[in-house]
């Protein structure tokens, strides 16, 4: 954040004291709010003449002492989520690569239909795709979840890669061609590796989205973390554990997603030091902005191409 420092004078002692005081005051207010929520949850409640224990009462958490519960959460729940996410991630990257090549093809007969299909897939909810595959192709829930996630994220990754390809300096392609490479050779050996590396942080950020979206499998009946904790276990052990199971599911999702996000950030730093020095941070300036910038650059270079060939 370099902007606010430019926006106003460097704060003097009074302004700094004021900011410190307001910082402490709001901090106390936020903490008080959080404590209030915690206390409300912890307080025992009256319901229809029976006093229910508070939500942090040991009787609401004792199921987690049972290793069988954890076994089920980890192996069936997390395992189901991760296996769907991993399969879909690999397939989505492959599909994305293929789509980006088709989309930036020289032949209009390939390029235009691909663009239409991409637009169609990107504008549709993943959930509807899952339902479509489940009902029309009559597959199992796993195949439906993986196929829908692959299609949707493959389309988005493909679009990001295409933007990366188009935003490369034209000289790269010209140099490849002038060395006697065929267009496809130049694309695969010269341009594509650069585009892929530049867009890698965006691709990983997209994989975080994919991991989150596996939870949609809950709605179409795929057995993953959410279904195991909130549906199977909560039904089996009784509804009084519902809140506890929710907290555990939330924490597990956060662990998985935050570590993948952290990996994306680390990756962007690492690739930045190696390549041209243009740094892409997938989380900080907002992913949408990055894709927007890349595709804007792509359009600009396309426009330049058109101008040069005229």
């Amino acid at each position, binding site marked *: *954040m*370099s*902007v*606010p420092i*430019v*926006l*106003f004078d460097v704060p003097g002692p009074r302004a700094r004291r004021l*900011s410190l005081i*307001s*910082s*402490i005051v*709001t*901090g106390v207010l*936020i903490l008080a709010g959080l404590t209030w929520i915690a206390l409300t*949850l912890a307080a025992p*409640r009256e319901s229809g003449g029976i006093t229910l224990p508070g*939500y942090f009462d040991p009787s609401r958490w004792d199921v987690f002492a049972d290793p069988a519960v954890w076994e089920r959460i980890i192996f069936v729940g997390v395992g189901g989520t991760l296996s769907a996410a991993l399969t879909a991630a690999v397939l989505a990257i492959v599909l994305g690569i293929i789509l980006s090549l088709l989309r930036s093809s020289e032949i209009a007969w390939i390029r235009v239909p691909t663009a239409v299909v991409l*637009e*169609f897939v*990107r*504008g*549709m*909810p*993943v*959930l*509807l795709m899952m*339902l*479509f595959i489940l*009902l*029309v192709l009559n597959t199992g829930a796993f195949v439906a979840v993986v196929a829908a996630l692959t299609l949707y994220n493959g389309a988005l990754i493909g679009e990001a890669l295409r933007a990366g390809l188009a935003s490369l300096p034209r000289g790269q392609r010209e140099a490849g061609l002038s060395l006697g490479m065929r267009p496809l050779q130049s694309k695969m050996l010269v341009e594509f590796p650069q585009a892929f590396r530049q867009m890698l942080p965006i691709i990983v950020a997209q994989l*975080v989205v994919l991991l*989150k*979206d*596996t*939870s*949609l499998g*809950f*709605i179409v009946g795929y057995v993953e973390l*959410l279904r195991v904790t*909130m549906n199977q276990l909560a039904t089996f052990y009784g*509804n009084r554990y*519902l*809140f506890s199971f*929710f907290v555990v*599911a*939330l924490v597990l*999702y*956060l662990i998985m*997603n*935050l570590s993948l*996000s952290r990996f994306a950030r680390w990756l962007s730093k690492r690739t930045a030091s190696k390549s041209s020095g243009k740094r892409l941070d997938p989380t900080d*300036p*907002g992913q*949408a*902005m990055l894709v*927007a910038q890349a595709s*804007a*650059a792509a*359009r*600009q270079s396309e426009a330049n191409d058109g101008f040069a060939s005229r």
Partner: protein
Amino acid sequence: MDAVIENLPTYWRGFSMTLLLLGVSGISALVLGTIIAAMRISPVASLRAFATVYTELVRNTPLTLVLFFCAIVLPYLGSDLEYETAAMIGLSVYTSPFVAEALRSGINGVPVGQAEAARSVGFGFGQTVGLIVMPQAFRMTIPPLINVFIALTKNTSVAGGFFVFELFASARELANANGDAVIAILLAAATLYLVITVPLGIFAGQLERKWVVQR
């Protein structure tokens, strides 16, 4: 095809609920996101920290889990919200950090030189922000914001899994009722989603192109 035409009223009921969800949660996410973005760039450190933690946590929570909390855990904790209201709250909360990030990236995207130039000709804070930074940031924010709303449109379908009768739920119900015309029914629902998302996407693309010309 006949199944689609016969059931147009059902589609319309679902579609209007989708539009309602989109409108209400879009506006409240915009308000909430603006507040978060303002907290994020405020000089008060504890507000900044709160906004950062909120953004990180909510962005990394699946929407299904958020809606599950609003629709099933909240009533269990003793609230008596309608499912529609619960879905709207969930969607707004889930969308707000994305709005905040889009706004923040717009403000960060204005080159520092602009603010420096404004300051060096003697503008104060209000003038620098109001006349120089904000007009540029606003324009750069619109395309990513539209993308956020496109994502929100698609996300409203998740509410269909939590007892809200919107487009996805209506498609599911119709598909179950008319086993022989599943493809047509689902494609019709997809078309209705595309009716919202594709024009928005084209609009965002056009704005992006304009924005490129200016830079």
